[in-house]
Every structure is written in structure tokens, then in C-alpha cells.
């Protein structure tokens, strides 16, 4: 697949969110830039929520002239107009990342100025007295979904502490719009399964692409991107199912390959007992061996031959494999449901890409966000980011009705 050269841009929100809103950013000619300084365009939404306004303003400041704004759509569907946000200046809010000096100079709280021979301060776990570097990956970091904030404390290049927060608030998770529509009954029952399954495949493919970009693996990113391109379409009938399934199969095999496993196996392990105790749901729980899936109770799915995908290991590799396999299965289910004649039925619980949606809440999502930060402690920086990404956290904290 030959594309035209892409222009680096600051993407607000990130590529995965744009995909779920139906916009193929690469088809529009943009790719995510490493830093705002390397970008020349801000590819943004029409409206932007309050929580992101100051961060977007700061990112805009960092983009060099000549710069322009390109509006690709309206994924947030609420908030202030983007151009207004770009004019505001907020001094102290979290931006792309904090320029806090890496601890080798300022704020030596425990240092004794007099005698240099005695290095005071608490030794870190490896015996060297080092000052922690605080890194705040802000709401617009390319390593995290837009709206997710991670405050990490680095001991050298090893994560000493990590706290993750979802900063966006809404009535529904914008990363799974069709699943929400199905749960609240806005979709005609017959189309429900097709829409939900296609969205699941699209979400997992977009997540795979983001993970591959984080791991620095263009091959997997390209294959997942092909699946995304095949699945992003308005009408289910116009989707190229074979192309999507082929690309997802290749992605699945790449996820199970040794190259991928070497970066993810054994990291950020959630065991089955822990998952049950915390009430985790969705692919995170299924990767830990808890076979909970809202689709198991659905007769329509049983008619299509659905079986929940589980793994035992509970590590980052298992979560990736669960999502890859679910994506392939989802495409198959969608294609079957398109042709089949299913009975009309209303369900109050719908299994979205990240877990069940039940009575206007997403149980397990907040617990996953709270858990993820603690599990990356002790990992080296790149491993920690890859492990965080393996949770596929949603930056939207859904407010209860």
C-alpha cells in the first residue's frame, strides 16, 4: 500500500481516538509528531473539552512558525471551540511534559552542602544515592491516549513510582461510541451485533497500531493500519471484510511472535485472583484467566458460535494476544451477523472493546486505571510505557447517572 508522504502534526486527540470517531488520520495526510517542535500542523477537533484546553494551548505555542490548524472532525462533540482554546494562556497546567530537571542539580533536599565526601540522602534500591526525576506525561503525550495523565518518578531509567489518572469526564466513553449506543438502546437490535463487533475490531486494531508505534515496530504498525483502513467505513456493507481479516491475522501472528513477546512477556502481571478481587473486566480480566464476557449471556452471540478468548498469563503479552484474537473473531462475527437473520432483542449489558457497559457505567475501567500505575514500578522506562499501553486504558472517566 503506497501512501503519500505524511506530514508530522500534533494530533488532538490521538490517532486511536480519531479512528474511533471515523476519521483516518493517515488518509488525511498526517502522522503523530514526536514533539510539538517537530510538527507544523495542529490536527485538531472542532470542539475541545475544558480539561485539554490549556494543554492544547501550550502545545500550540511550541509548534514553530509557519503553523496552521487543520480541523479533521468533531470527535468530542462537546466543549469549547478549538480556536478559542488556542488563544487562552494557562500558566501552571500540565502540558506535554514538565521540564523538571532530571534531579541532578536543583532541589537537593537531602544534600549536605558542606562535606562532599559524604553523599547523604536515601540510597535507592540499587545502593546508589540518586535523586528521582519526575516526569509528568501530560494529557497530550504521544505515549498515552489523549486525556490520560501519568505522573512518574524515575530512579535513573527505572520507574520508582507511577500514578495514572483519566482526566476527561463524560456521560459515555467516546472511544466506544457504538457500543454505548447499543447499550442505551439507540441501535436497532439487528444491527447491534454488527456495529459492536466491528467497533471492537476497529478499536483493537487501532490499539495494536498505537502499541506498535510505541514499541518502534513499523511492520506491525503498518499491518494494523491496514486493518484500520479496511474497517473505518460508515456503512457495514461497504467494509472489506477479507482485507481486514487478512491484516488482523497477520497482526495476530506478529503479536504472538518472539519479537513482540520479548518486549511484553512477564511484564505488569495481573493474576486471576487479583483481577477478580478488583473487579476488573474486559480483555484485561480475560487475559488473566477470568473468562468474563457479557456476550456469553447473549443468545444471539451463542447462535453465531461465540466463545470468549482467554489467556492465563495475565501479562502484557497475554493482553495483546487476547485483543488480537478477539479482533479476528469480531470480524468473523460481524460478517456472519450481517448475513444472518437475528431476532430483535434489547440488551442492557453490552461488551465494549474495554469491558462491559452496564446501566450507564463501565465497571472495571476506573479500577484498571488505578491498578496500571502500580504495576509498572520497577520496569525500565520503555518497558514501563509498553506495559502501560498494554492495558488500553480509557481516558474517559464515565460519570454515573
Amino acid at each position: 500500500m503506497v501512501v503519500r508522504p505524511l506530514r508530522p502534526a500534533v494530533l488532538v486527540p490521538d490517532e486511536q481516538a480519531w479512528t474511533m470517531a471515523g476519521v483516518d488520520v493517515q488518509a488525511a495526510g498526517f502522522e503523530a509528531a514526536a514533539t510539538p517542535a517537530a510538527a507544523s500542523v495542529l490536527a485538531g477537533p472542532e470542539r475541545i473539552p475544558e480539561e485539554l484546553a490549556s494543554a492544547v494551548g501550550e502545545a500550540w505555542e511550541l509548534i514553530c512558525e509557519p503553523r496552521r490548524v487543520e480541523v479533521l472532525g468533531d470527535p468530542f462533540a462537546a466543549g469549547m471551540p478549538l480556536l478559542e482554546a488556542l488563544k487562552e494562556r494557562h500558566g501552571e497546567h500540565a502540558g506535554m511534559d514538565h521540564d523538571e530537571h532530571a534531579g541532578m542539580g536543583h532541589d537537593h533536599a537531602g544534600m549536605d552542602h558542606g562535606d562532599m565526601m559524604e553523599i547523604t540522602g536515601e540510597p535507592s534500591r540499587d545502593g546508589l544515592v540518586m535523586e528521582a526525576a519526575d516526569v509528568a506525561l501530560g494529557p497530550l503525550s504521544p505515549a498515552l491516549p489523549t486525556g490520560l495523565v501519568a505522573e512518574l518518578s524515575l530512579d535513573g531509567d527505572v520507574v520508582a513510582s507511577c500514578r495514572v489518572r483519566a482526566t476527561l469526564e463524560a456521560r459515555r466513553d467516546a472511544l466506544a461510541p457504538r457500543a454505548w449506543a447499543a447499550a442505551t438502546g439507540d441501535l436497532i437490535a439487528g444491527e447491534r451485533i454488527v456495529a459492536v463487533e466491528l467497533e471492537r475490531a476497529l478499536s483493537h486494531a487501532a490499539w495494536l497500531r498505537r502499541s506498535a508505534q510505541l514499541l518502534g515496530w513499523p511492520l506491525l504498525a503498518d499491518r494494523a493500519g491496514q486493518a484500520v483502513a479496511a474497517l473505518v467505513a460508515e456503512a457495514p456493507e461497504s467494509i472489506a471484510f477479507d482485507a481486514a481479516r487478512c491484516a488482523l491475522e497477520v497482526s495476530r501472528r506478529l503479536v504472538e511472535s518472539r519479537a513482540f513477546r520479548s518486549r511484553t512477556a512477564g511484564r505488569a502481571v495481573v493474576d486471576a485472583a487479583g483481577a477478580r478481587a478488583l473487579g476488573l473486566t474486559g480483555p484485561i480480566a480475560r487475559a488473566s484467566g477470568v473468562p468474563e464476557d457479557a456476550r456469553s449471556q447473549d443468545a444471539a452471540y451463542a447462535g453465531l458460535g461465540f466463545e470468549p478468548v482467554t489467556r492465563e498469563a495475565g501479562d502484557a503479552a497475554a493482553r495483546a494476544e487476547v485483543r488480537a484474537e478477539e479482533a479476528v473473531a469480531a470480524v468473523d462475527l460481524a460478517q456472519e451477523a450481517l448475513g444472518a437473520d437475528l431476532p430483535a432483542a434489547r440488551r442492557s449489558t453490552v461488551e465494549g472493546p474495554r469491558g462491559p457497559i452496564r446501566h450507564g457505567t463501565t465497571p472495571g475501567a476506573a479500577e484498571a486505571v488505578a491498578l496500571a500505575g502500580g504495576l509498572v514500578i520497577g520496569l525500565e522506562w520503555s518497558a514501563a510505557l509498553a506495559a502501560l499501553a498494554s492495558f488500553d486504558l480509557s481516558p474517559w472517566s464515565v460519570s454515573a447517572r
Partner: protein
Amino acid sequence: MSNWTPFAILALALGGAWAVACVEQAVAGVRVAPALVLRRAAEQLDQPLAVPAGRDAWLYHLAPPLLLVAAVVALATVPWAPGFRGVDLSTGAILFSAALAYVTPSVFMAGWGAGGPLAVLGGFRFIALMLGFAMPLAMVVTAVAAPAESLRPAAIVEVQHAVPMVIVQPFAAALFVPAAMAVALLAPFDLADATTELEGGAFSRYTGLHAGLIALARKILVLAVAGMTAALFLAGWQGPLLPPAIWMALKTGAVVAGMLWAGRRLPRFELERLLVVAWIVAIPAAIGVIVLAGLITLLFYR
């Protein structure tokens, strides 16, 4: 070396950097747009210079020129044709390693000078990586110089008139190519400026002329490293039928494409793993390669 050599090398550096950028696009499956490469470069140079409120302005400003000088000197040691051998020093192969050795301080200076924690982290990761990889790189150069009984790259090319060195000393090539890719900041060894993990890493705080110089220097580094690989292991300009310069250009282009292609097919390696491989496998293997090179020289090349 004539009076025109420096100009020829500079012209080669600029033209070669542009060609490497086009090959990069082709390998990525993107439609090759040669004019677009130049336009984007011009846009980048147009940007204003930003000086971050970082740690060390001197080091921040000195890093891009140092990287560029290292890249150009490395390029200058590569022999391209019997009539154009670059800076034809009798110790050219060691000068190549010496020039590449200055990539490490410049990446460190870029990260440290910028001052943000992720930039400094990028700089230090690169130091850790290169401490392990620099020795195999230099030792393998010794190993391929042994059959030629000379450190002059042109002499090493000429001794391969019968058989390319990659066939005679495959382990040397297997050690050289990854180390060369690492020093040229190529994926899957691009730990210094992992674009997503480190938000640009060591080079993230540069804009305008600095960023342009760094991008240029990186492309020249790739060209230099690929050219030297072709000269040391693939018999350089030797080959039937075609003129020597064409052979060298084809081989260098193939090596560049191969390195960039490998970067796309493999995920970025983790520092931990690379350090283990470098110190426990690569360095003893490099010593073994030198011993083997000595044996091969005594048996076949005398």
C-alpha cells in the same frame, strides 16, 4: 587526495543525504517525493531557533555541529572509486572509527544540553549502548584490515578482488553491521531518540537550523556507514562490466536499503538485552574474529 577532494566530499554528503531520504521513503512504502524532501528541509531551516530553558547552552549549541563534523569526516574516509578514494589516509579505517566515536559525545551533549528528563535519558541510553557496541565496531575493522595488511580502506577493497570479505569473514560482518546501525542511530537501535517512547529523546529540543543540521548529519552517517560496509565487506568498487563508481553506488544503496528495511521489520530492542548481547557475546566474539582473521591471513592471503 587532490585539492578538489574536500569539495567533492561535501557535494557527496549533501547529495547522498538527499538520496538516503528518498530511499527511506521508498522503504517505508511511501510514494517517493524527492522534491518534497527538499521542501521539508527548507521549511525546517526556516523555523526559528528555540533555546530551551535547559541545563547547558554551550553543550546544546555545540552538539549539532559536532555530529555533522563526525558524520562528514566518517564519510570522507570511505573509498568510492579508484579515482576518488576520499581522504586516502594510510590509517583511514581507524579514522572512520574515530569519527564515529564522536557521535556518542554529541548525542550526550544534545540530551544533556536540552535538560528535560527524557532528553537526558535518551543521551544516557545512547552512551550505555555505544559503550558496549563501540568495541566490536573497532575490533572488526582490525579484523578486516589483517588480510589487506593495511588500514587504508582502498587497500582493503583491493584485497577483495577475488572474494568479498563477507564470505571470508561472515562473523565479522555479523558484528559490524548491527554496531554500525547502532552508531548511525538507526532503528531497531534508535534508543537515543525513540520517537514515541522518549517524545523525541535526545534531539527533541532542537528546531530550525539545529534540527536541520542534525537531520542532515544523520543521513550522512547512514551513508558513511553503509559505504564503509560496502567497501570493507562487499568488495567496494570491484565488479565486472560496470564502472567501479556504479558498483560502489549500487552496493552502498543496497546496504542503505537493507539497513532501513531491517529497521522497519524489527521492533526496537530493549537496552537491557542489547547490553547483555554486547558485553557477553559481541566483545568476546570480536576477539575471536580477530584471531580468526589472523589465521585466515596466514593461510590464504600470504
